[in-house]
């Protein structure tokens, strides 16, 4: 086993960590860095609960070797609210619309939605659904999640 030292930007801050060559990003985040907001639901890239943003794009951190984060920027759910605790408009909207039930898919939903709104601030419903199609939710039936993304997009006007 040859461990590797990697440096990357995590939620806006530069971090340097030593990782096993075969560690997956989700485990580095959760176990080594203590960021447990990123969830593990299937470990095969199907549920989307482990979604993080890599250079602003959503990826499944359960499928990504941690080494791939080197030199790049990673955003997790913990990185969305401002330092003073002010919520991101999506976080506000998810609470306002009742879009979170058990909450297990919520970080993945919010991060995929963030990537969408960053690229397309006022998406149509079809675009919202497409952007969130890689995260499964078993509780909500998705309606209030779509509503929350719409609300957040409106609050950004």
């Amino acid at each position: 086993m040859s461990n590797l030292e990697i440096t990357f930007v995590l939620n806006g801050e530069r971090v340097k960590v030593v990782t096993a060559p075969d560690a997956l990003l989700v485990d580095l985040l959760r176990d080594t860095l203590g960021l447990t907001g990123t969830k593990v639901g299937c470990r095969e890239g199907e549920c989307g609960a482990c979604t993080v943003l890599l250079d602003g794009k959503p990826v499944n951190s359960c499928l990504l070797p941690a080494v791939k984060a080197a030199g790049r920027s990673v955003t997790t759910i913990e990185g969305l609210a401002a330092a003073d605790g002010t919520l991101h408009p999506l976080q506000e909207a998810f609470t306002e619309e009742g879009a979170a039930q058990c909450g297990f898919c919520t970080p993945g939903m919010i991060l995929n939605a963030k990537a969408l709104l960053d690229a397309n601030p006022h998406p149509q419903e079809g675009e919202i659904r497409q952007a969130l199609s890689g995260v499964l939710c078993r509780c909500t039936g998705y309606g209030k999640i779509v509503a929350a993304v719409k609300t957040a997009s409106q609050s950004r006007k």
Partner: protein
Amino acid sequence: MSYQFNEFHWANDIKAGQYLQPATLAEALDMLASFGGKARVIAGGTDLVPSLRQRHLEVEALVDVSRLPGMDGIARQGEVVSLGGGVTHAQAASSPVVAEAAGLLAAGAGSVGSPQIRNVGTLAGNLIAGQPAADTSLPLLALDAWVTIASPQGQREEPLNGFFLGKGRTKLDPGREIMTGIHFKALGQGRGGSYQRLAKRKAMTLPMLVAAVVAGVDPGRKVFTGAAIALGPVAPTPLRAAQAEALLAGAPVSAESVAAAVEKASEESSPRDSCLRGSCDYRREMVKVFVRRGLADALAQAGCPLD
């Protein structure tokens, strides 16, 4: 013991003793060679990581080719479109070059997995995985694409027709070689394409059937100059319905010739009965529907619609 331990027990990790990040293609090939076939190339990792976790595959090292120079470009030179070996599904799905040259490939790339998978998974990885119904393999096969493979002996080109040897096996040696490019001739001027997909749900699922179709026509004479029909999963490898294609070559563009090709394509298909992807009988019926729809769509694009 008479059973496979890994079929009933699961790990929460993957195993690879080394993670190597070559700076050049030559270095990457040397690294692979030094493990004598026991290393694997990793690009997006979306196919590789699950098979490592499930212990379907054991490796000593992973060689990451995603940062090699020149791997992520999409370019068109004259008629030929070239995609680098590191081009992701998301790139292909959103590329104006691909959309113009081969809408069926853009559609296929846009159907792979989920947005998160498409952001890292590569077309080359899809080809190398050698699955009978990969969403980008079938359009590329229908486009008569060819690939560039770098090996210790140098570069070579392989046509995709003939590239797939069996389920999970191709002409590329995954422990020693690297796919560096994918090339095909752009559609247009009497050539149209279509991508047809059947699945049990509307996102994030493997297809029950894919039909990728390219039709070449002479609009003046209203005859087929050629046709390519790629189907999967209807055989252990992605299938070109060669006999159906032969029926169409030179045939008039008509409902009758399409109907004959549709029947032939269905006969050529031999999907197995699958409790998850549907019975043989059903999928043979669906081959008819999707080849018919695909040909109609491709003909319309080629400027010679069926009446």
